[in-house]
């Protein structure tokens, strides 16, 4: 019986972790789908999102309190501002290269450069210190036998689900969403439909960055502290999640994130494999998956060189 409870508890934990991965993986996958760029700065966008949320909570928390209302407002502010930051990065760093039809390798190196810029920028601004996200959220929740689920966890999963549904609606039901999917298929044909391709790519960066910022704020609230290097490993993990799902695929990024989150928490519980080995476990699964299905769960086979 105890094993059963442990499994359930770990599934809950895995879903939370997976939610963060999914939200970040979406931005990776959308940008890759549309301009074939592995945006390595995306993990740092998530980190900036956490800091902007922290700042916003500091300012508005005194008025709105540091409960759910204050956090929700901080989350929305962070999503909006970091969305704009994503657009700025696209306009300043990537679009000039796209205009010159630079090789994809140059774009990739630029992304690494943007990553370092954000990373070091925040390091200097925060003196490299940890910041504590002080909220008034407690540890209350529901207990089912030995399984404890806090309200915070429930709300995180619900919030992630809402963001994903909103994204799904946007991509499938609005003209700009359809334009995004079309640009991923054929940019010149889009121009001939009267679609401003540059503007639509910019919008993609806004949406992807806003989702990463949401994950950043939620991670800050959930784990309680943030620091300038928090985006590095999670960026790689989210990239992994995007690849598991099939990079370029939106449902793939959602599912890939959850799968990776579940694998990772499962890895911590396996006998003889301690939590120190969890990354080895999840990346091992990734390698196996790629051997048998190189295009990921939802990926289409296409020949790509990077």
């Amino acid at each position, binding site marked *: 019986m105890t094993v059963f409870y442990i499994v359930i508890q770990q599934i809950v934990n895995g879903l939370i972790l997976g939610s963060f991965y999914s939200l970040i993986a979406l931005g990776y996958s959308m940008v890759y789908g549309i301009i074939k760029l592995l945006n390595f700065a995306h993990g740092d966008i998530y980190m900036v999102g956490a800091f902007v949320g922290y700042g916003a909570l500091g300012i508005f928390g005194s008025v709105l309190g540091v409960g759910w209302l204050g956090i929700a407002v901080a989350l929305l502010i962070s999503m909006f501002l970091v969305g704009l930051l994503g657009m700025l990065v696209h306009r300043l760093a990537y679009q000039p290269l796209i205009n010159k039809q630079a090789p994809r390798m140059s774009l990739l190196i630029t992304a690494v450069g943007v990553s370092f810029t954000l990373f070091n920028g925040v390091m200097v601004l925060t003196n490299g210190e940890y910041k504590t996200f002080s909220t008034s959220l407690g540890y209350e929740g529901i207990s089912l036998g030995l399984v404890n689920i806090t309200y915070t966890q429930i709300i995180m999963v619900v919030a992630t689900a809402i963001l994903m549904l909103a994204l799904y609606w946007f991509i499938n039901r609005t*003209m700009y969403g*359809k*334009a995004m*999917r*079309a640009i991923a*298929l*054929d940019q*010149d*044909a*889009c*121009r*001939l*439909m*009267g*679609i*401003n*391709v540059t503007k639509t790519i910019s919008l993609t960066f806004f949406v992807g960055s806003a989702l990463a910022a949401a994950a950043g704020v939620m991670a800050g609230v959930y784990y309680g502290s943030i620091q300038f290097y928090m985006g590095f490993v999670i960026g790689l993990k989210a990239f992994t999640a995007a690849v598991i799902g099939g990079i370029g695929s939106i449902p793939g990024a959602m599912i890939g994130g959850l799968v990776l989150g579940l694998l990772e928490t499962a890895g911590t519980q396996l006998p003889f494999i301690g939590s120190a080995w969890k990354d080895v476990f999840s990346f091992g699964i990734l390698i196996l998956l790629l051997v048998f299905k190189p295009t990921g769960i939802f990926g289409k086979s296409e020949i790509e060189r990077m």
Partner: protein
Amino acid sequence: MSENALVLRNLETYYGKIHALKGVSLEVPRGKIVTLLGSNGAGKSTTLKTISGLIQASSGTIEFYGKNISREKAHNIVSMGLIHVPEGRRIFKDLTVKENLELGGFTLKDEALRRKGIEHVFEVFPRLKDRQRQSGGTLSGGEQQMLAIGRAMMTEPKLLLLDEPSMGLAPLIVQDIMRIIKQLNDEGTTILLVEQNAKIALKLADYGYVLETGELVMEGDSAKLREDERIIKAYLGE
């Protein structure tokens, strides 16, 4: 004097280092069908791409109803009412037929206009209506061409550039497509038609130009070109 929908003056275009268009000048009178003939690599598609703004001309002017559009971006040219149906149809294969049409109406102001446009396209191409939920990639070649033309009809263009609409299609389907093109023209759409199939193009068009390695070498009324020995020898192939 009929008004010109499109006037090209001394259009020069480079594709990298290749001098693809060497001073092309032509006129498309409003309400007419004009065809641009030529063999593979003559620069027909380049001409259309330069007009629609996919490629920038290095010199010369493109006048669309008297307005110089040679420096305009492709997406702005679309909202002026000039639509280019590219070679190879270029439909969005992973999107549904309906979504393809909706994107054809991307520049329309609202959903109601888009719905009206789609209904109109379905009247002209009932087959697309049956397949509206299917993804574009599952359509046959002829249906894809219908979709490509339908997509262009969404905004009721003032000038339609058609690049090789007959390419790769069975003769019966080609007839179908040509009938639709004629119908669009009868409804008031001016058309610049690029074709390798000179026979059908000259049957449909009022006037024709012949392009060879980036230069216009001949022009005239379609009836006259059909009789011309050089045309017969080079393009009508007896």
